[in-house]
């Protein structure tokens, strides 16, 4: 164990490294939505006799985003979530290709099969999207013809799913990077406010920045407010002038 006294002076935060790391992720203007649309239309065109294709993404917080090439596919998808059963949910959960040859005879998801029959859906092929060892969603094609999909379509969909998973997980990282960069911007604004307040206290006789921060922190505990709020109130009081702040 190192002694606390051995610790070198804290180095300034390397912000440029953090920012350029994020900028690396912001390579393209692709968003999750446009990537989803691209993948959906690819799936629809790569398989013959397809009525509609759809992609569902599930992020680590369980939120779903989806895209569908037409309203029948969208509805068939929505029904799976409403009924909480269906081939795509199984494909995603079990990480296996799921094929329904005929919705009128398949017994695995009876409620969903009955519901999609009214949409004209007779056969389904669904592949999980797996990126970096994690199932991030499922991609599926629906057909009006029974027995429309075979092992050849399964292979095509699996090949496509591999690439789609990479693309989609990258777009999700981009999304995450945007969120992080927003948080970082917020953190820097707070840091500015506190640094200015520390500066004010130094100007008023505080012995060191550490002492000034300690005083702010003690005031925060006394008022039961976060340090940032104390710092902002302090700056407001200084800018407006002590007499005016008392009149508030």
């Amino acid at each position, binding site marked *: *164990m*190192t*002694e*606390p006294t*051995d*610790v070198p002076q*804290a*180095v*300034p*935060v*390397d912000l440029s490294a953090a920012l350029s790391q994020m900028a690396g992720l912001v390579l393209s203007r692709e968003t999750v939505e446009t990537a989803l649309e691209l993948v959906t239309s690819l799936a629809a065109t790569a398989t013959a006799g397809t009525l509609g294709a759809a992609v569902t993404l599930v992020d680590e917080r369980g939120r779903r985003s989806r895209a569908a090439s037409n309203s029948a596919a969208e509805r068939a998808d929505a029904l799976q979530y409403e009924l909480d059963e269906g081939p795509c949910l199984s494909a995603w959960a079990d990480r296996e290709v799921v094929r329904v040859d005929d919705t009128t005879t398949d017994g695995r998801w009876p409620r969903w099969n009955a519901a999609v029959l009214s949409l004209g859906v007779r056969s389904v092929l669904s592949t999980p999207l797996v990126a970096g060892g994690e199932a991030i969603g499922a991609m599926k094609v629906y057909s009006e013809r029974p027995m429309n999909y075979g092992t050849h379509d399964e292979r095509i969909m699996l090949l496509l799913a591999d690439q789609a998973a990479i693309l989609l997980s990258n777009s999700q990282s981009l999304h995450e990077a945007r969120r992080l960069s927003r*948080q*970082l911007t*917020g*953190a*820097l604004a*707070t*840091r500015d406010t*506190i*640094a200015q307040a*520390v500066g004010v*206290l130094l100007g*008023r*006789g*505080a012995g060191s920045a*550490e002492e000034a*921060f*300690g*005083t*702010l*922190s003690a*005031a*925060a*505990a*006394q*008022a*039961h*407010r*976060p*340090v*940032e*709020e*104390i710092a902002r*109130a*302090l700056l407001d*009081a*200084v800018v407006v*002038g*002590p*007499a005016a*702040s*008392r009149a*508030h």
Partner: protein
Amino acid sequence: MRSEDQHAAIEVARVCVGLSVQELWLRYLALGGSCDAFDVDGHLQGLVALDTFQQDVLAQAANEALDEFVDSRRVPLSGAARDPTADGALTEVIDQLLTRWHRAPAPALRPQAESPPEEEGRPPTGSPARV
């Protein structure tokens, strides 16, 4: 509190409020902390020693997260809502902050300070000419 106990207490607080190390680090960064997330992570696990000031900033970040966590779960009473830390209290705390060092003689850049704009309620400061 000894630093060995402090890092453990911060780690307990972090887990209790459900913050990731990254999220706690970001809060610490916002408060003016200057160690990287790796060091903070190591510190929470008792592997990296931080200087006292960095430890205190990290403790403050953890305490604010704890306060938010508790405040958001406070059970309301049926009576009228009353915030004991209303604006009056905040103004008072700020006033105390701003006048805290006034009693000590200023580092005499100008022997004659400007006369205060108002005399109301402010305790008389020491003789400005005293150097």
